[in-house]
């Protein structure tokens, strides 16, 4: 969607739920967070839930989203966004609670929370940005760093003999969550599909079915030290070869 600005300049429309005062946002040029958060913003607008939700964000680059939306928001500790929104939802089930985090927050320091929230089928929506490294701290190996990939703590490439294989988070959540869960993996390379996943993940919470989890493949050109072409190639080819796109769990349609 585009809108006409002064002097015949076209500019993409900003989601209504975005907080204009904090734009332009603080993510690096080429970062995928902006795309994910735009898709989330549009999904919030389309579902009309801006006034009914709480947005929680983790530590790492995702914390830069703390004032991103015109939505009640809380920035928590590293890995602890899942329990914070779980605590809210348990106390006030009428709230729509969204946790936004990176791969470190979800699959490393907060993995016990993600795993157990999935097992308990917590009625929250978790959106996780997978960019294969720890961006905020300067590009260390993450649970999602691809085999052989160079990072600051794997300067000669990730050795899977020493560090194991990348975490397949969506598959893990899908494996342990009971019926009612929604689990998908999208990519910033296909924003329309990603928005569809995020919207379904929110709707699944609104319907009270179970946990909703969307992993978003994303780019980190600053730490990857890649140009635009290399960045997109990595997201579209290397990452999708390991992290399969699509819906892993969809709740069964209710009988009418």
């Amino acid at each position, binding site marked *: 969607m585009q809108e006409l600005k002064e002097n015949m300049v076209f500019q993409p429309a900003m989601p209504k739920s975005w907080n204009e005062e904090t734009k332009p946002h603080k993510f690096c040029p080429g970062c995928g967070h902006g795309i994910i958060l735009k898709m989330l913003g549009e999904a919030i607008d389309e579902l009309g839930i801006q006034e009914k939700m709480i947005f929680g964000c983790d530590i790492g680059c995702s914390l830069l989203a*703390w004032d991103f939306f015109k939505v009640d928001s809380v920035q928590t500790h590293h890995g602890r966004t899942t*329990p914070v929104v779980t*605590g809210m939802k348990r*106390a006030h089930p009428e709230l729509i609670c969204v946790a936004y985090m990176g791969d470190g927050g979800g699959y490393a320091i907060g993995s016990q929370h993600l795993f157990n929230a999935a097992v308990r089928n917590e009625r929250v929506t978790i959106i996780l940005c997978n960019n294969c490294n720890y961006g905020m701290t300067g590009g260390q190996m993450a649970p999602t760093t691809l085999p052989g990939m160079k990072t600051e703590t794997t300067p000669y490439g990730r050795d899977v003999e020493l560090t194991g294989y990348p975490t397949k988070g969506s598959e893990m959540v899908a494996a342990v969550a009971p019926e009612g869960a929604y689990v998908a993996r999208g990519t910033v390379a296909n924003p329309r599909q990603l928005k569809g996943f995020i919207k379904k993940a929110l709707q699944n919470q609104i319907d009270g079915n179970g946990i909703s989890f969307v992993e978003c493949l994303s780019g980190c050109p600053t730490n990857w030290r890649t140009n635009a072409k290399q960045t997109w190639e990595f997201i579209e080819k290397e990452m999708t070869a390991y992290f399969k796109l699509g819906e892993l769990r969809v709740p069964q349609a209710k009988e009418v």
Partner: protein
Amino acid sequence: MGEVSLSSEQRVFMTGNETVAWAAIAAKADIMYGYPITPQNEIMHYWTRLMPKYGKKFLQTEDEISAGFTLAGGVISGAKAFTATAGPGNVLMQESASMAEMMRLPAVYIIQQRGGPSTATVIYSQQETTITTFGGNGEGHRIVFSTSTHQELFDYTIKAFNSAWAYRFPTFVLGDGYQAKMREPLTIYDPEQRGINLVKPEPILGIRPNGSKFTHLRNTYNTEEELYKVVMANQAEWEEMAKKVVEWDSRDCEQADVIILTHGVVSRAALGACQQLREQGHKVGYFRPITLRPFPGEQLKAAIKQAKKILIAESSYGQLVKLVENALYGSTVEIVPMLRPGLGITTEEIVDEYNKL
């Protein structure tokens, strides 16, 4: 004994853990988040049994980190919420307590101290004094009530919810395994029937009555100066709160040569020792901080004016002494420590220690 209820004042005989569960019901708490660890387990056991009757909620989390952060989420959404833990669980909960200090969250933690360091014993100590008063990477912007009887466990658990929601600092009730597990008589009551106002919780985020303005809560700051302002503002409000919240018990200190100073359950032994020694004609005083944060430093200074010695008895190795020395900096009174980490302390032992002075 008939059915226990809060409909009118009732004399009961119960464990400290059961007492806490009843106090949380009496304080109109909405939800408990918890993870099993001895010696606090029965708080969860009684809470979950009382839940259906009183319309309460409970979530058993995957660990104490999660219990602390679900608690943070609960209070942010406007629920009167609490958790309970001990020992290594207390260590893990300090992360959420530190966030609660920064973001001014009225989270209530019940601590039933066990032995330390590490897993140690499941039984008893006062070795969580330092971590409960100053745990986390902050300035101790919190309230800590140290109880000594079951009646106090009941009264101060209710007070903890009120203080937390009135001043918006994380609030701890510091008990111990002895208080948790032993049974003794106390009176339970509906605080509102006694004219005690219960501070109402309200949503910090989420659906609010006015609805219009959005709030962005954070605990991360960009510059040193920005952080300094926030911490100093919290410090100023903490000091303002401290004057209203600080509590202590001081007896016979005015003409005393020796003051026996204790906190928590050890105060029961101290009280007994003071009585015995005074009956024998000794000039002995009794001083007990009830709030360890804020510490009643000024009140202690006033109480020891005539004293030559302070005998400090604690079931840890100098954690209470540290708080006292900090409060009495510059005073020339002699401090005689009686340090028994992880051990209970009896009246007789304190009397013996006094006789060695």
